[in-house]
């Protein structure tokens, strides 16, 4: 495959598409598919045939606003239809070219206007199982440019220049990591993609792997060239069967086109990727645990150093990045490091994809420039809290993150600002809670999660989270005391400072952040035996009444 051949494929796709008068894109991501998008696509194809119109009906990845699903976008008019059912197919086809169906049209300008799409630039535009579609949208151009025109050092330099930081949560500068692996000595090196999206409430990595799998593969191949690796692994959760099948197809297609394999683009560069299945362990998001899991062992972390950059998979230098990090690579290479560096805030560059869920009108995937205010994400893009309820907190960073209250919503989103607020960026889950959520119970929920997900290797995490869970359960059912609260705070510090890996070190965050911002709720549970959200069952009060009766 050469650049000329790539351009020829893109041209062929455009010529093929030009044969049609209209393009009807049907979102077939999990949320829409579970509401009958499959039957809808068939119905649209049938209706187009019956009407004798030249219509290309295309299956696409996630378009974003999942709560409006199933979604259909008609091009060239760019009309967006929501809540479409199979029986609406004839009227949509009838309305092509001038008379859109008013009752299905949705106005989501506020939702889209503040978004900037880099990672999701192809979302809703390409068929994830067709490599040609990806190529027609500048796919693999970055890889071939890199192979023919840039030195590995030059690639590392460009990524460093972009200011990209790891999208898996920690925010380690990607360029620095690549540089370290590139400099590491060793004839065999590995590139690993972390697709073990274990953070409950986050699904952007699933969406990227399912909706635009080639983007991840291209990012990995560029990384492999930059660091001098010839073998890659994508570690995917077994809970994401569609992502596995899409990636498998994408890898096969990429090999068939000579974009993976030996002597890619007639250069000495060889690279291939294997898929590895996770098996449901949150701790495997931690890089040393992930490595153990790829090696077929229990996913328990190891103390660092040595870092995977010097001794990772089978003791070889290994580069590990998250799905979204790799998805950013091709656009950075294509548009230059400065282009990316110009987006975002002071120390957090580019955009971030968030999975907006919970008590919010527009749930789904959004991609926003770093530095945007949380309030803009929740109120303008998300459409605010529905049902007349009052916003209480937004949870970011999953079980390692924290709850951010209303008064902090005007802070711009960045790695550092979120840490300062007692939360973390995490992989990008953003769960909105209203006055029907009890913050003590939320803290208990996360601690229960960390307790069951603790691998058990180090004592602070294994025993500490269990003790914290017991204390929080006591507070939740009304039998907790002020001493319990003091002990809980003490334990938080111990677990945070003495745990071996990120899971334990961040496990107390949900407790600490709720204690910081919602301490009065803890006090109410303990002193007044009252849960203002009405979530916690106060066992103590009931039993006292029984005694009195």
């Amino acid at each position, binding site marked *: 495959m050469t650049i000329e051949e790539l351009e020829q494929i893109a041209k062929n796709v455009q010529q093929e598409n030009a044969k049609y008068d209209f393009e009807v894109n049907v979102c077939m991501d999990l949320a829409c598919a*579970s509401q009958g998008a499959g039957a809808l696509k068939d119905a649209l194809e049938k209706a187009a045939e019956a009407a004798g119109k030249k219509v290309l009906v295309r299956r696409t990845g996630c378009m974003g606003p*999942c709560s409006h699903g199933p979604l259909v976008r008609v091009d060239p008019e760019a009309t967006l239809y929501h809540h479409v059912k199979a029986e609406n197919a004839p009227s949509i086809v009838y309305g092509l070219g001038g008379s859109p169906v008013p009752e299905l049209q949705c106005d989501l300008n506020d939702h889209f206007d503040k978004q900037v799409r880099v990672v999701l630039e192809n979302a809703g535009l390409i068929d994830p199982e067709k490599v040609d579609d990806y190529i027609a949208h500048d796919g693999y151009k970055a890889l071939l440019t890199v192979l023919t025109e840039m030195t590995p050092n030059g690639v590392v330099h460009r990524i460093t220049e972009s200011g990209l930081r790891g999208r898996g949560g920690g925010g380690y500068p990607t360029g620095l990591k690549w540089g370290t692996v590139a400099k590491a000595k060793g004839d065999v090196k590995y590139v690993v993609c972390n697709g073990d999206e274990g953070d*409950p*409430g986050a*699904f952007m990595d699933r969406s990227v792997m399912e909706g635009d799998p080639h983007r991840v593969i291209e990012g990995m191949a560029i990384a492999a060239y930059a660091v001098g690796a010839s073998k890659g692994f994508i570690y995917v959760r077994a809970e994401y069967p569609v992502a596995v099948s899409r990636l498998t197809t994408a890898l096969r297609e990429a090999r068939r086109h000579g974009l993976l394999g030996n002597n890619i683009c007639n250069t000495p560069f060889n690279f291939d990727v294997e898929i590895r*299945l996770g*098996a449901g362990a949150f701790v495997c998001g931690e890089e040393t645990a992930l490595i153990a*899991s790829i090696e077929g062992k*229990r996913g328990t972390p190891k103390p660092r150093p040595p870092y995977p950059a010097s001794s990772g998979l089978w003791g070889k230098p290994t580069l590990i990045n998250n799905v979204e990090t790799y998805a950013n690579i091709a656009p950075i290479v294509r548009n230059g490091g400065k282009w990316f560096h110009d987006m975002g805030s002071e120390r957090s560059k580019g955009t971030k994809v968030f999975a907006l869920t919970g008590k919010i009108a527009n749930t789904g995937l959004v991609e926003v420039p770093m530095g945007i205010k949380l309030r803009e994400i929740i109120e303008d893009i998300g459409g605010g809290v529905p049902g007349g309820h009052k916003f209480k907190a937004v949870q970011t960073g999953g079980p390692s993150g924290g709850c951010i209250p209303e008064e902090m919503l005007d802070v711009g989103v960045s790695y550092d600002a979120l840490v300062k607020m007692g939360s973390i960026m995490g992989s990008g889950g953003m769960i909105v809670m209203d006055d029907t959520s009890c913050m003590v119970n939320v803290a208990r929920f996360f601690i229960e999660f960390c307790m069951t997900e603790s*691998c058990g290797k180090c004592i602070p995490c294994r025993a500490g989270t269990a003790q914290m869970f017991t204390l929080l359960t006591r507070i939740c059912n009304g039998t907790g005391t002020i001493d319990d609260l003091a002990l809980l705070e003490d334990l938080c510090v111990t677990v945070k400072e003495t745990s071996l890996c990120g899971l334990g070190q961040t496990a107390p965050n949900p407790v600490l952040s709720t204690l910081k911002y919602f301490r009065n709720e803890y006090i109410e549970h303990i002193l007044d035996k009252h849960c203002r959200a009405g979530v916690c069952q106060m066992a103590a009060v009931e039993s006292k009444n029984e005694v009195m009766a």
Partner: protein
Amino acid sequence: MPVITPPPLPSEDKRWKIVNGTMRKNGFARHALIETLHTVQSSFGFLDDDAIRFVALSLRVPLSQAYGVATFYHYFTLKPPGKHTVTVCAGTACYIKGADKLIATAEKRLGITPGQTTPDGQISLMTARCVGACSRAPVVLCDGEVAGEITGEQMLEQLERWAVE
């Protein structure tokens, strides 16, 4: 290269050939343990002692390591599943939208706790950490099919349909 003689297949069951195929594809390498256990579980529905022993012997992995891996990861189950499986997602978004009530409803109707199967072997109740359909929370998987924004009544209707089969 030492010649490896894999152990004989545990039975005539054709599914063992699929399991063997996965191992062969990976050159009987030890790091194929998790991949192979995935194949066993997708073929047989669960991992039993015979399967773990067979895989461990074939890949020359200590039994303790194979058993350790099989029990460490939540995705693997050592018990046969029921004819139907209802999985309530207990991720954060689902929790905020009342997944705990769905679990309680299912527990009450079936008389079992998550991870168990009804005595007649008809329905298994499971919970999931997150299935990634958070935008449609609360989510229940009925035999793997995603049902989003589900109510307790809708879930019970499905359970009743299964119970009378």
